């Protein structure tokens, strides 16, 4: 099988409101940086794959406007997923494995600011039994958090600890939308948003974009001093009915991790896409992450959660840690849907220097 690596990663500064720029205007500087990093032009890329959602913009085929930013005319080899960019990366990885391309540009972006995100996300739910009730995204996460508390897996103080650790780590992340945190004790004095979740348990709502470049074999070695080789990547989904699922478990994450080879050797770093504090508790257990693993040194989705990009950013952050020699074997996780509905796990490695 061909070896494929992430050779470059760039992201925007994530902001609560970017109404001064269009989607393509927000995206273009990120594309420019990621391509400059490997010294390629858009025209030299073998395959381009993007992730975004029309429901965020409120306009059909909104991704076609963003395509202007990659120079898609005359037509290039290109694809789009109406999902987080992590799944676009999976498609691009598959494309490189076929040998049809040696390089791929993967990007994704989301502007939550034009709409009411908690309301918009209800439209991804089962249209017969759930969507007519308009259950918002924070409330669904709160149901899962309460189930974890009832099961004795965590408590509100531990969740505040996750928030505090993540946002403190984000102080070193110049792209973070939210960084710095009060200590867990004072956090517990704040009111509930949707009990048992408080505001600090929830991700910031904002706009942002991210991009990575993938390359195969010697092309990757030529573009990057220390490529982040994708040793395994897999994604799995839970039954779509919330009431069928055991909300305190994530069998799909466990299975994806097994298939990606996450348990074959210990990882030193993990970037988890856990928009809510309670979800990190669950993911740590399913991914068997010990206390010695650096979890979300970027601050994770609690520091910046641009829809459709936050999962790709986990892969990008894990790869960037390998590029700069800060990690030798890292796990990256991305999620989509309510209560960790769908999960992707990738294992990245750098070669010994």
């Amino acid at each position, binding site marked *: 099988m061909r070896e494929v690596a992430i050779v470059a990663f760039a992201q925007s500064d994530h902001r609560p409101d970017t109404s001064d720029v269009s989607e393509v205007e927000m995206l273009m500087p990120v594309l420019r940086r990621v391509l400059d990093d490997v010294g390629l032009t858009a025209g030299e890329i073998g395959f381009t794959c993007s992730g975004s959602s029309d429901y965020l913009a409120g306009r059909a085929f909104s991704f076609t406007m963003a395509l202007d930013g990659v120079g898609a005319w005359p037509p290039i080899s290109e694809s789009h997923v109406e999902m987080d960019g992590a799944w676009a990366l999976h498609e691009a990885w598959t494309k490189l494995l076929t040998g049809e391309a040696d390089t791929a540009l993967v990007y994704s972006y989301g502007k939550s600011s034009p709409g009411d995100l908690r309301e918009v996300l209800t439209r991804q739910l089962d249209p017969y039994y759930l969507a007519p009730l308009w259950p918002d995204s924070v409330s669904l996460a*709160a149901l899962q958090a309460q189930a974890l508390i009832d099961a004795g897996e965590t408590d509100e103080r531990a969740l505040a600890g996750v928030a505090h650790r993540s946002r403190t780590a984000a102080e070193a992340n110049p792209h973070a939308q939210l960084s710095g945190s009060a200590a867990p004790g004072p956090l517990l004095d704040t009111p509930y948003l949707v009990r048992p979740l408080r505001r600090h348990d929830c991700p910031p709502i904002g706009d942002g974009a991210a991009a990575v470049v993938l390359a195969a074999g010697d092309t990757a070695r030529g573009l990057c001093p220390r490529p982040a080789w994708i040793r395994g990547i897999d994604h799995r989904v839970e039954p779509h009915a919330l*009431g069928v699922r055991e909300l305190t478990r994530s069998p799909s994450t466990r299975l994806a991790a097994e298939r990606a080879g996450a348990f074959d050797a210990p990882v030193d770093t993990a970037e988890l896409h856990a928009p809510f504090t309670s979800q990190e508790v669950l993911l740590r257990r399913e991914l068997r992450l010990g206390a010695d693993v650096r979890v979300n040194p970027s601050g994770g989705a609690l520091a910046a959660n641009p829809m459709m990009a936050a999962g790709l950013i986990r892969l990008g952050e894990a790869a960037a840690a390998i590029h700069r020699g800060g990690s030798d074997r890292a796990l990256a996780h991305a999620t989509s849907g309510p209560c960790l509905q769908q999960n992707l796990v990738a294992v990245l490695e750098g070669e010994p220097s």
Partner: protein
Amino acid sequence: MTPAPSSSEALRAPLVVEFPFTRSLGPVQSDFLTGLRERTVLGVRTTDGRVLVPPVEYDPVTAAELRDLVEVAPTGTVTTWAWNPSPSRGQPLDTPFAWVLVRLDGADTALLHALDAPGPEAVRTGMRVRIRWAERRTGAITDIACFTPDGDAAAPAAGPAPHSGEFTEPVRGIVAPARLDYTYAPGRAQTRFLAALAGRRTVGERCPSCRKVYVPPRGACPTCGVATAEQVEVGPHGTVTTFCIVNIKAKNLDIEVPYVYAHIALDGAGLALHGRIAGIPYDQVRMGLRVTPVWTEDGRYPDHYRPTGEPDADYDTYKELL
């Protein structure tokens, strides 16, 4: 080159996306939703004997087709909950309530709905609840108005009873209205374009790489993948590159048919925009016709384009813009 407006000048406008989704139901969904209309809750039995409520058409584990219906109780147990202090549009209750997953008596899975309770201290996992039916029921999940606390009532001893799923006038589909409110912001390039248009000037943007002038500009050159920033006023005259004759009267449009809709390359523009041609009989419009915009008094964009009287443009001057 005009200076770019600062971000505070960026345009924004309300955008409402609203449509009714008409969805057909599978046989199991049809029986379940018709049952709700009749105050009967049906579940479906899976291959391994579990009872799913709400029921699905296919087994979540084996993917086998499921048709074995049973009736479960209108009472159940809360398996998890979340207190929603500020209900939003469309949610089951407009006063603070608890979202709950409820395992109805006789079911092995839980159903999401709202619980009408005085406050979070009145809610706990494991509490007993009962369905409150909506007064007007149509065969939808909202036929359950919500759940209410059911005190210390014990679960019924009897298990789920087989049910034929047969009702008179079964529900075969649902109409699910959806409305989302947005604030649309077109970004820098389109804001500059619209601001110039308000002064009856058409301003495109030039690609720094291939020099093509985009009208209207979208902020990037789709060929080079770079940002456009240099503003270039184009027109006002232009050339019809191609056209069609419209014979169907559009709803809410006060224009007599037939009329001509054309692609128009404004002088200096690198691609054609489109507009209506008037001031000339429809059957005399032709490729190469020279036109200029006509503005109505309060129009924010040209109402239509009329012939200038200049000689027709040579085909070679606009063939790249077709």
